[in-house]
């Protein structure tokens, strides 16, 4: 028999037409729409061979679903009825129960059959559930897929009972297999007509399928694929750069943003008065990028050129009208910036310090003026420590000066206007006013690093101020009960901790976290509003910072989960030391003896836990009590190894030390093969346990092997 002809797959074109959706939200919305559709189709058994692609532009979110079957497959089901004993009488004739079951199932009584179940034999009927058409399913699925999109803040444009979305939905296109799909989304009936660019296209364009849609939109001023828009922008930016023989000030985020901000992006070039180049580059670039979304351009020598590249939502600017408008706006913005630059510097940066009294950091932690005093204390403590440990670049006086000036720019007009330039503005003013470069750079950099990949401050003085500022934030906030939860971390304490960890590791700074927290706690108590922290809070703060350290070791340095656990279990108060131990552990891990020894250590830990003995406990080992040679052998091998490990550790030779520990494997193995730890005689048993406790205590100070292996746990 010939199988039925496979039905021709069909495609769906679906467009949500909106008033301008915020550009920054489009990439996620596009992705979410795809995921929602895939999930909802899968739930209807419609996902096989189906491809969902989604696209977006400011006024639309579009889905192209191809490879759809015309309908769901039919499904055969078995429905069970009454048990055999009830369904048939003594002569095997169907009873009323059987007849009524058949009637209910709309089948002939003769087609009923018996099935064996756990509870016995039951009557059953075969049913075919006819698959619904894709059209029917989509009518239900599409409104769901739109409804389930999540937005940071939705709105209503009609009233309280009206639909909610990120911006008003004004039209819907739904075309299945060339035909209009009858569906309503957000109270709007779908049609087969889309709208082009506001000014370059028609407002009623009939479309039949996705490719038709894409083509017609293009001739109506909309490039529907974001990648194509980004390509167009990239090509035109390069063309201008080449023509002027300069290069575009690179900014990947801006490229992406402008691609989502325009339906038909076109790059134009504009000029500004070269006199503005007297202003620092940072300010010029910020004005261009953050406020006007322009690309700055650089000459070959890296200096800024008196030009900019703007991306407009139009196909051309033949007469230069748009260009003149953008130039005019930029001129006014630069004039403002120059005004602030000059008026802010009518007094010196340090003169802003008293004004910080009026800038609150956190109501329970006082003003920024109070915070500055705390930062100074901590920065001084850090640099003194480092200097005493022989780090010559640790300059106490410079760090103190930088800490004093670090927050002053918060009271300036420039930072009020351009908050994203905090720190940078202070650094620029400090330099312009003759502070030493070291101090100016430290002020400039002290908010860094702002993420895992952001560089740390360029000099040690900046690192000290950044460290002190961040530590004060973490200690202060946790002390008054501000604890980050889930996605809520308004004082960016996780980021601050991450910054502390990065600075310590990248500069290889010797510092005890617990002592540093102690110093910060002292500063917190020494200055207004004089908050105290408890020792319980101190240890919670250590854990909070160590949690970020684990993250850095795993994500940035690619250490395995169990390696980090093993090393941290042996202590991580000194992160640089912990890092050295991690490197050693990773190196030794591949050696033959290592993993089996880790298994033995795990076994030892379990035995001790069961016996209620903590590792390294003070139980004396009495060699007289040993009954077997393997005990004696382990004891003496451990003693020899211990003295070797001690001296290697003192010399910082962690890998060699770990190799010595790993070398214990054969004697440990022989011990377990040869003796029963839990001997019947109590004193023998206690002695053996003491031996193991000593072993574990002695040899887990670099890394606790018993943490190695086993399942990966997710943090």
């Amino acid at each position, binding site marked *: 028999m010939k199988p039925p002809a496979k039905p021709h797959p069909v495609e769906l074109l679906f467009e949500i037409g909106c008033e301008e959706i915020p550009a*920054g939200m489009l990439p996620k919305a596009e992705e979410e729409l795809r995921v929602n559709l895939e999930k909802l189709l899968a739930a209807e058994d419609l996902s096989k061979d189906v491809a969902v692609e989604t696209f977006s532009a400011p006024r639309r979110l579009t889905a192209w679903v191809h490879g759809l079957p015309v309908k769901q497959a039919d499904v055969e089901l078995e429905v069970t009825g009454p048990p055999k004993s009830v369904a048939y009488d003594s002569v095997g004739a169907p009873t009323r129960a059987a007849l009524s079951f058949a009637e209910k199932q709309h089948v002939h009584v003769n087609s009923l059959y018996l099935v064996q179940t756990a509870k016995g034999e039951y009557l059953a009927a075969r049913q075919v559930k006819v698959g619904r058409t894709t059209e029917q399913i989509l009518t239900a699925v599409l409104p769901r897929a739109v409804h389930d999109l999540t937005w940071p803040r939705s709105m209503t444009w009609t009233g309280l009972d009206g639909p909610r979305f990120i911006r008003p939905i004004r039209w819907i296109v739904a075309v299945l297999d060339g035909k209009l799909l009858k569906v309503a989304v957000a109270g709007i009936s779908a049609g087969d007509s889309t709208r082009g660019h506001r000014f370059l296209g028609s407002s009623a364009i009939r479309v039949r399928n996705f490719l038709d849609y894409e083509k017609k939109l293009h001739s109506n001023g909309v490039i529907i694929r974001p990648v194509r828009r980004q390509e167009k922008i990239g090509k035109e930016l390069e063309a201008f750069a080449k023509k002027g023989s300069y290069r575009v000030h690179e900014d990947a985020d801006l490229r992406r943003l402008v691609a989502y901000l325009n339906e038909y992006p076109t790059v134009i070039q504009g000029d500004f008065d070269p006199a503005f180049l007297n202003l620092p580059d940072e300010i010029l670039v910020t004005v261009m990028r953050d406020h006007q979304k322009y690309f700055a351009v650089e000459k070959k020598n890296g200096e800024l050129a008196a030009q900019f590249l703007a991306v407009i939502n139009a196909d051309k600017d033949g007469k230069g009208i748009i260009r003149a408008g953008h130039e005019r706006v930029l001129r006014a913005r630069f004039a403002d910036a120059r005004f602030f630059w000059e008026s802010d510097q009518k007094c010196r940066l340090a003169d802003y310090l008293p004004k910080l009294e009026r800038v609150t950091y956190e109501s329970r932690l006082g*003003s920024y003026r109070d915070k500055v005093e705390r930062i100074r204390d901590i920065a001084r403590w850090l640099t003194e420590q480092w200097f005493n440990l022989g780090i010559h670049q640790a300059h106490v006086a410079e760090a103190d000066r930088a800490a004093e000036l670090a927050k002053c720019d918060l009271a300036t007009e420039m930072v009020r206007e351009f908050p994203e330039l905090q720190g940078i503005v202070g650094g620029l003013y400090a330099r312009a006013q003759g502070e030493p470069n070291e101090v100016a750079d430290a002020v400039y950099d002290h908010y860094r690093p702002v993420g895992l990949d952001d560089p740390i401050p360029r000099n040690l003085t900046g690192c000290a101020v950044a460290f002190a500022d961040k530590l004060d934030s973490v200690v202060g906030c946790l002390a008054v009960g501000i604890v980050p939860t889930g996605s809520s971390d308004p004082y960016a304490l996780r980021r601050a901790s991450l910054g502390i960890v990065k600075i310590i590791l990248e500069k290889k700074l010797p510092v005890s976290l617990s002592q540093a927290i102690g110093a910060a706690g002292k500063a917190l108590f020494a200055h207004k509003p004089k908050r105290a922290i408890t020792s319980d809070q101190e240890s919670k703060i250590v854990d909070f910072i160590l949690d970020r350290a684990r993250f850095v070791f795993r994500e940035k340095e690619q250490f395995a989960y169990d390696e980090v656990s093993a090393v941290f279990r042996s202590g991580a108060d000194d992160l640089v030391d912990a890092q050295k131990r991690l490197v050693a552990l990773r190196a030794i891990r591949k050696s033959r003896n290592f993993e089996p020894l880790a298994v033995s250590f795990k076994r030892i830990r379990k035995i001790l836990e069961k016996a209620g003995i903590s590792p390294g406990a003070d139980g004396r080992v009495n060699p007289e009590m040993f009954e077997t040679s393997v005990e004696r052998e382990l004891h003496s091998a451990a003693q020899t190894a211990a003295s070797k490990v001690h001296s290697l550790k003192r010399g910082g030779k962690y890998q060699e030390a770990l190799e010595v520990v790993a070398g214990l494997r054969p004697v440990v193995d022989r011990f377990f093969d040869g003796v029963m730890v839990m001997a019947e005689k109590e004193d023998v048993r206690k002695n053996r346990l003491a031996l193991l406790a000593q072993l574990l205590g002695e040899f887990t100070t670099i890394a606790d092997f018993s943490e190695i292996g086993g399942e990966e746990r997710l943090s």
Partner: protein
Amino acid sequence: MRVKVKLEARTPGLTFQDLILQLSQFWVKQGCVLQQPYDVEVGAGTMHPETFLRVLGPQPYRVGFVQPSRRPADGRYGENPNRLYKHTQFQVILKPSPVDVQDIYLKSLGAIGIDLKKHDIRFEEDNWESPTLGAWGIGWQVLLDGLEITQFTYFQQSGGIDLDPIAVELTYGLERICAFLQNVESVYALRWSADKTYGYIRLMEEQQLSEYSFDRSDAAAIRAEFELHEKQAKELLDGFKTAEGKSRMRYPLLAAYDHCLKCSHLFNLMDARGVISTTERAALMARVRTLACRTAASYLQQLGAEAAAGVRA
């Protein structure tokens, strides 16, 4: 040094007063009531009762008006070409929001001489919020060749009350638009009428009021005034709770609102004088917000009473 730019050959744009006339005419044709500026100092057109109160409740309403808006901290002694102690807004409220509201708005730009096809017009995300009014909305700033010319907002809440139906608020920044149309760099060079400039008419006011609010205002006296106005607003709002029948319908909630607006302006004066800390700032704003929210809630109750009595049906 001036940079040479190729400029569009165009007739000198609308004068400031013609800009107001054209916008007024356009919106009157759209069915708007043409209202007058409010006569109590406000920081924005949103504070005009024609916006703040009219957006509450179910009755449809369309209105347009000019609103000079005082922002003491933005004063620059008349020395900055773009920043003003008092700037001028043209505000439009459309309630409920029409489905083609963006198109109507764009047509209004055509009415003041902007050829949309020759420019780069963009709606960029900008959600508006007034913490002192307990009001916020979702929308955009409209950019014309990179210049912010209008705040376009779907109002969601006013006085802490969820709006139903939703009104659209359009706020045109008249000085900016006019400077663009006339292609001048400084607001003071704008032609207000055929023979008078904006500077001729307003510069002295900018100089004196900046001098007053930054250097000469009596902070203690202003603080005391704030307390007085707050007290009166509170007393009036408290009294409404027990007002009944006819006296409830004519109860002077609008006077309570005027006192609330006074508080808002006095707060701005203290802020410009630099006498409030950040913490106090939040607390003072919350006090004004409380008055605004209480006024809004009472006003809705009063509207309900009026509707029940068939006054406005």
